């Protein structure tokens, strides 16, 4: 961890920098015809969504694994992937309106992609709320169950809202049509960079969570030892 992590940080930093350069400069991704340079936010908007869904998939896998094996590592992986996934999806939900305002003139619309993304965001925020509010002895199991429910719900969300919003013709919004191969190349490059960055954040958060749990356990053990010591002769219970 002490040696590998800084090296990976530097490599990811270089990759992110290169991906940003390619996204923002006309040498990398070509300027879009109708939208101009505003379109370049696309290279942050889409990869953050893809990264978020990758992380939610990992959350589902870790939740299932935890319920089968009851391994604490799986529980920490589930927590970490949900947290970082929610952050990336928030980035997606914020960059969306920022892009939409100059291009479509509106901050938000209830088309199927935006609505579905918002609902998935709500599902995983409720997962994090459960983690926060439940008693610590039960949290891993409850959260694993909630993670599985959330992941099962995502296909329903997409399918139902797709049907709902495509029933009545809406103005065509975003996406659709073919994409210039150079743009696809920069998009995938940014996705790779985001994924590496997500991996690093997850890793350090994992490490932090492990330390936090060790500290909590040490506190618990210590108060237990103090309690038992009190009962030995020679030690008196002090008030308070």
């Amino acid at each position, binding site marked *: 961890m002490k040696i590998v992590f800084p090296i990976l940080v530097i490599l990811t930093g270089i990759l992110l920098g290169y991906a940003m350069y390619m996204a923002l400069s006309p040498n990398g991704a070509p300027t879009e015809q109708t939208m101009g340079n505003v379109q370049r936010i696309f290279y942050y908007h889409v990869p953050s969504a893809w990264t978020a869904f990758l992380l939610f998939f990992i959350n589902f896998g870790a939740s299932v694994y935890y*319920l089968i094996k009851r391994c604490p590592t799986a529980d920490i992986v589930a927590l970490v992937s949900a947290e970082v996934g929610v952050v990336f999806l928030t980035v997606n939900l914020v960059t969306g309106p920022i892009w939409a305002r100059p291009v479509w003139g509106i901050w938000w619309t209830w088309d199927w992609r935006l609505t579905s993304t918002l*609902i998935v965001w*709500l*599902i995983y*925020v*409720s997962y994090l*709320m*459960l983690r926060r*509010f*439940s*008693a610590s*002895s*039960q949290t891993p*199991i*409850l959260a694993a*169950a*909630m993670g*599985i*429910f*959330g992941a*099962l*719900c995502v296909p*329903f*969300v997409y*399918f*139902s*809202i797709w*049907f*709902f919003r495509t*029933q009545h013709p809406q103005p065509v919004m975003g996406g659709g049509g073919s994409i210039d191969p150079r743009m696809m190349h920069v998009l995938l490059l940014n996705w790779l960079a985001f994924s590496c960055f997500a991996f690093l954040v997850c890793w350090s958060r994992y490490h932090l969570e492990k330390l936090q749990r060790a500290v909590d356990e040490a506190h618990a053990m210590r108060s237990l030892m103090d309690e038992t010591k009190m009962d030995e002769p020679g030690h008196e219970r002090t008030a308070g």
Partner: protein
Amino acid sequence: MIPTYESDPDGTTYQISAKKTGAGHGADSGQPARSRAAKPKELLIRGITRATLFKDLRLEWRSKDAINSMLFFSLLVVVVFSFSFDPTAEESRQIAGGLIWVAFLFATVVALNQTWARELRNQVLDAFRVSPAPANSLFAAKVLGNFIFVSVLEALMTPLFIAFYRLRALGPAWQLLLVAALGTWALVVNGTFFAAMSIRTRSREIMLPLLLFPISIPAILAMVQATTAILTAESSARFWLVLLATYDLVFTTSCLLLFETVLNAE
């Protein structure tokens, strides 16, 4: 023999008799050996589910806690909605679907919140956990009980809605029964599960809606759209009914598979 237990409306539980159930325990009643061998575990599940369900129904019938609070709450919601909308008969058909289901959703949360609270008093839930009874039988009983309570509420509130909004279904009205049944089941099965999950969390009453609403959004969308489709006859409700049925199937299965784990999560 399956013991039946009675509870006072305030939740004190005591065993009054050990009633013989109809089947499965032939050793006591001298029934033919064939029924003794006939799938004892399934019969045990049915017996416990039935006993718990009847206990809950009896408690509810005597105190009428849940049904009164749900009814009054729905009425309040309808009145508050009336301040925002003053629709013509045509418009009301468009929006009534959403209004009805929002009112029922809030009422369901009221019912679900007290589902498990009753079991926590006097350690009834702990007693159930240490008993050899399968957890799914308790879950099934709770879900069926809540389903009955919410269905009674819906039956009572529907004439009121029809009167307040001058509703008349332009499409096949019998499908509304199907929407009500499937939709209520979707809310109640997930709600009972999440209510069990939030028993020992901080802020128990607020955790239930926070967990339930996001997961239920596809079902709520389907219910509202199906009701609107039937009322306005502008489209077919078939897709939404199929979606509701699939949703019910998937989530009932998940709840049944995971309930025991969640109940014993300590």
